[in-house]
């Protein structure tokens, strides 16, 4: 795999508000890359920089080794799937999909089969003559996709395209997106605030917060080895605890010492300890490292979500066996499942 798009030292401010801070990032050819972060973190701005709708205050956007920072949007070999679809209301479905090819002066005889092919790809054959207003949100989304993909872009930028759809439709569209990306074999850069969506679809995820890249990695890496408390909290639910790293493999939190697998910290360094709710085991009171009392127990479908109060904190615990409220229990965590994080560490810090 080769690097297709590269962002180098990108800075961007709107007024006094710095949106992107020293963004360095490489996008590989044909990968499904997700930029994940809470709203206002700057993820859409990154997408707009690649699409050509914004120019950075400083830094470069490189595409196939060429600097395209100042190239206007209409000359870039990328297409965007807009959050609001932005279909042209004065054109019917066929004319919407054919729009890009007509601008490029492709002969009508060639446009027809390509529109057919695209409508087939998004499962909307027979909708050619419909007005876009008469389509449902999901259908508009597919037409927007067909309209973008008919231009055979090298990269498709997707700006929270599933945000406006209901849960069922969103799940279906996720499967569709993945299928289309695999069939066409082009690069997808996908922006979302939905961590589940990111974990399901992506080859790689970039976690962004307040204009700073927190972590870059595969979904598995990011889920299992979050670099800091923000990532851990944002990717799935977590118990985040204040802890002290006394020495290698010895951490204390909630007033108890635990064995862990981390090393190379300063002696007695204050750290964030992250434990996934499914990694907290409920045992009998005597066997537990920590003792607590069940505060609540909610049925979530596959598992039960319990809040268990110890003397210092409230733990979030997932288990398939429900406990009754008020029941005293013991809690243990395997050393493997205790994740120790330097406070405020982000991607690239270790290299410095």
């Amino acid at each position, binding site marked *: 795999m080769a690097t297709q798009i590269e962002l180098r030292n990108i800075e961007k401010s709107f007024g006094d508000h710095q949106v992107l801070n020293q963004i360095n990032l490489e996008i590989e050819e044909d990968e499904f890359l997700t930029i994940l972060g809470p709203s206002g973190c700057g993820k859409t701005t990154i997408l707009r920089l690649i699409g050509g709708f914004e120019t950075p205050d400083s830094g470069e956007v490189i595409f196939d080794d060429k600097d395209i920072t100042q190239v206007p949007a209409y000359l870039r070999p990328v297409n965007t799937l807009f959050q609001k679809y932005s279909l042209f*209301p004065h054109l019917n479905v066929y004319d919407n999909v054919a*729009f890009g090819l007509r601008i490029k002066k492709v002969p009508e005889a060639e446009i027809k089969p390509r529109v057919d092919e695209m409508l087939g790809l998004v499962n909307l054959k027979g909708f050619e003559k419909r007005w876009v*207003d008469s389509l449902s949100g999901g259908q508009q989304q597919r037409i927007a996709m067909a309209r973008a993909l008919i231009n055979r872009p090298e990269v498709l930028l997707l700006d929270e395209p599933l945000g406006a759809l209901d849960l069922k439709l969103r799940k279906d569209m996720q499967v569709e997106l993945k299928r289309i990306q695999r069939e066409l074999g082009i690069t997808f850069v996908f922006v979302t605030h939905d961590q589940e969506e990111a974990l399901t679809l992506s080859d790689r995820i970039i976690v962004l917060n307040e204009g700073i890249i927190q972590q870059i990695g595969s979904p598995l890496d990011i889920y299992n080895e979050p670099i800091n408390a923000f990532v851990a909290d944002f990717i799935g639910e977590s118990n985040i605890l204040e802890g002290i790293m006394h020495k290698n493999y010895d951490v204390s939190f909630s007033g108890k010492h635990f064995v862990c697998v981390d090393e190379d910290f300063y002696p007695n360094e204050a750290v964030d300890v992250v434990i996934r709710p499914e990694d907290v085991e409920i045992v009998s009171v005597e066997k537990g490292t920590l003792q607590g009392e069940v505060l609540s127990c909610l049925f979530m479908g596959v598992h039960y979500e319990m809040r268990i109060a110890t003397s210092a904190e409230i733990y979030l615990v997932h288990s398939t066996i429900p406990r009754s409220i008020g029941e005293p229990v013991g809690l243990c965590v395997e050393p493997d499942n205790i994740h120790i994080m330097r406070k405020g560490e982000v991607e690239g810090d270790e290299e410095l």
Partner: protein
Amino acid sequence: MRSFKKAATPYFIWALLFIVISLLMVLYYAFTGESGNFSTENFVRFFAGSSLGTLWRSLKIAFFTTLICLVVGYPLAYAISRLEARYRTLAIMLIMVPMWMNFLLRTYAWVTILSKNGVINSFLRYIGAAELDLLYREGAVILGMVYNFLPFMVLPIFTVIDKMDEGLIEAAADLGCNKLMTFIKVIFPLSLPGVASGISMVFIPAISTFEITTLLGGNKTNLIGNVIEQQFTVTGDWHYGSAMSVVLMVFLLFSLIFTRGEDEMGTGSVTSTAEVDRE
């Protein structure tokens, strides 16, 4: 809801008195003769007589006025909508403020500019050039109409372009449109509802005005509005005047149906885009 309906009662009375009844009175006068008998002679007289030529000239002048307003107003509206927010408000204010002044006063101002001893001719005399005969010609009438009605073209077009979803313009750029192509393929077609209402808002007053023609056209370029006015104020033939009004109304009705058809198609799509936005 009930109280709302009650609150509308004064309006219904007003509408009944001043719209429905007066319209029926015009129709009554139009279809009756001096003695009050039913007759179509007023219409026969109109379509046989010289007034038909006046109607034709009025249509022509209204058409050119509308065309000039469109050619000048569209680029102006477009340019204003592209301004930064604070300058945009200022520009719209500059267009609106003259409209707060009395319409006759504004038209009188043109008399002092165009007349034999007016501003332009004084200047021409000063630099030793030949004087121009500007006032009391068709050109002066069209100028006065364009001046008075231009805001009615600019404002609806501006409103449509200003409200246009920025996302559509970005989508066009994304699909390979440069600025000119974006305008031709997206902005212009989507602004047509504004153009349609601008056209009807200029054309209708332009065809029926009589004040501007009286002030700037003298008695040389009488238009249908003047002829109708004279029937009521000078000749006193209410029956013939009403018949001419009815003919004019039918004309306007046609032009309204035409623009409304355009409008419904256009606004329909613009509204639903707005709905998508809200989602």
